[in-house]
């Protein structure tokens, strides 16, 4: 799952990125409103964490422009502006959730998970796929109850497929959601990750649809 983080404080960006990476999310960071507007409108993010007090352009106007352009990516506003009027303004502008600074990292992680689950229709943070269980709260994976170690990229692929159970995902879409904006998006490496996941989690978990992509069956 790919997340855009629009925040102008570099240390906070690194902390949030570290938190989300640990749960198998890929995070792109931008430090200004104009950059956020551009990437949010052109890249297929699964959600956006948006500060209001961004340089060059404030977050609320960026969010309004996204919504008026028909971009429906879920947005969580993360801001120091804690007035109730500002919260309502943010939600009225099209935000899905609103968090004020200072905040607790576990709460941010929980809100991000909740938004991504709502987005994918997964109400339970623990996704069961046959004998494989993915706990989205901590990125832990078990097969037949045995913990399995996955690399960050393998976890990112599994997490995206798990959030889209029953839906065919093309290699392109998969690469768009597991690589950072500046990352090397060689879609051929997707096949390598799929092969590794099959080795670790069993050959039947991920189905290949020839010439089109991959899918985890909902059955």
């Amino acid at each position: 799952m790919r997340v855009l983080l629009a925040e102008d404080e570099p240390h906070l960006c690194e902390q949030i990125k570290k938190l989300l990476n640990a749960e198998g999310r890929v995070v792109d960071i931008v430090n200004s409103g104009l950059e956020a507007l551009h990437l949010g409108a052109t890249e297929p993010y699964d959600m956006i964490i948006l500060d209001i007090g961004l340089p060059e352009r404030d977050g609320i106007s960026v969010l309004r422009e996204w919504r008026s352009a028909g971009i429906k990516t879920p947005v969580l506003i993360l801001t120091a502006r804690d007035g109730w009027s500002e919260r309502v303004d943010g939600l009225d502008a099209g935000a899905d959730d609103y968090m004020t600074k200072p905040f607790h990292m576990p709460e941010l992680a929980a809100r991000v998970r909740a938004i991504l689950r709502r987005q994918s229709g997964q109400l339970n943070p623990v996704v069961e796929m046959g004998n494989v269980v993915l706990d989205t709260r901590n990125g832990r994976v078990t097969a037949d109850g045995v913990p399995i170690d996955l690399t960050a990229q393998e976890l990112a692929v599994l997490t995206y497929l798990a959030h889209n159970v029953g839906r065919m995902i093309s290699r392109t879409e998969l690469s768009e959601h597991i690589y950072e904006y500046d990352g090397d998006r060689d879609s051929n490496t997707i096949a390598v990750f799929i092969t590794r996941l099959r080795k670790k989690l069993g050959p039947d978990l991920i189905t290949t649809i020839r010439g089109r992509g991959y899918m985890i069956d909902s059955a």
Partner: protein
Amino acid sequence: MLSLRQRALLGGTASGALSVGVGTLAVFSFINARVSDRFDTALLDRHTQLVVGLSVTTHDPDALRDLMFDPAYGTPYSGRYWQVSNSEGEIFTSASLFDGVIAEPPGTPDVTTLWNTRGPENEALRGAYQKITYEDGTVWGVSVAESQAQLVAERHTAQQSLLPVFALVGLIGVVGSLLLTSIILTPLRKLRSDVAHRWDRDEDLKPGDYPEEVSPLVEDLNQLLRRNREIVSGSRRQAADLAHALKTPTAIMRNELLLLSEAGGSTETAVEALDRIDAQLGRSLARMRALNTADLTHSRTDLSHSIDRLARLFTTMAEREGKSLEIERDPGLWVRMDAQDIEEVLGNLLDNAVKWCKSKVRLTAGRTRNGIEVVIDDDGPGIPQDAHREALRSGGRLDTSVSGSGLGLAIAVDLLKAYDSRLDLGASNSLGGLECRIVIPKGTNAHPASG
């Protein structure tokens, strides 16, 4: 200091009194002159009559009493007299002089001379005298005199008849000055009204709507009002910048402490200190806003709209926790409060209610005889009666005002106090939990711009 109306009334009265006084003196002086002229003319006519009468009776002056037929000459001390005297010192008088005589003017002039003298019983007389030499060679002093009492009475009558006229003129002057004051003050009354309605319409006053003497003041007022607004928005921007500048680093520190804690480090003291910093920051920023708000903004806010906005947010929040929020409000409730401030008050109270209720929160808002009341009830545990004062205490200890345990109430109290409004706590009769009653008195609530 005297009001403009009082000054105009005093000035109008003084100038009116001066005008009436001077006018009265001038008119009375004119009347006196006219009455005296008429009196003297009549006196001279009688003197001529006596001179003519004597011309045919110089040989028998006693016959004059028959010739001068005016009955007043025959009545003793009637106030009308005549007298003739010859060179031998013989004096002949009208019967009205009885046994008295009229003194002759010094120098016994041979031209007709008017003068003031005294008559019988020291009566003030106006006399006419001439020394005449007749054709028969006799020389006579010819005098007529008339009591000045008649002259004084005539003057008095004329003055009395004019006094009511002058009083009426004076009254008209005072009423006129009041009317003039009212007309002059009309633009100032309009200015006052426009300034009051400006808060409603949130637009500048129009200098062109005022007389040229007042329009510079209107422009100055516009500048002052704009400056006030800039001060408020500037201080709010500063508060927001300060919040951003301080809260982001504390968020970073909090996260570093969390990592340290997960690695087995002891962070409790540092986290507690950070909590206190956050609480102090929240409280200080809220107080900054309360201090800068009410006196400078006078904004007008659609309370019903604000309630609806917050209802959308808190209904979602309550439903996520399996709770419900019920809203009952009158339409068209307006208050003279900044929208952010009243929404901050309502938001804090609704946040507490949703947080502490078991399953239900109800907000009711409507007009009362004294203003507008907003009541937020819940079915939570409430706050004991003896703890209400501490919960609402402005400036209470911050270490007891950590998030969720009273800071929101204290901020709400500070903000409401800035608008002369108040927050009362009680027990909810209908839901059994806490009842928060916001009382916004008349004067703080406003009506739509149309009226």
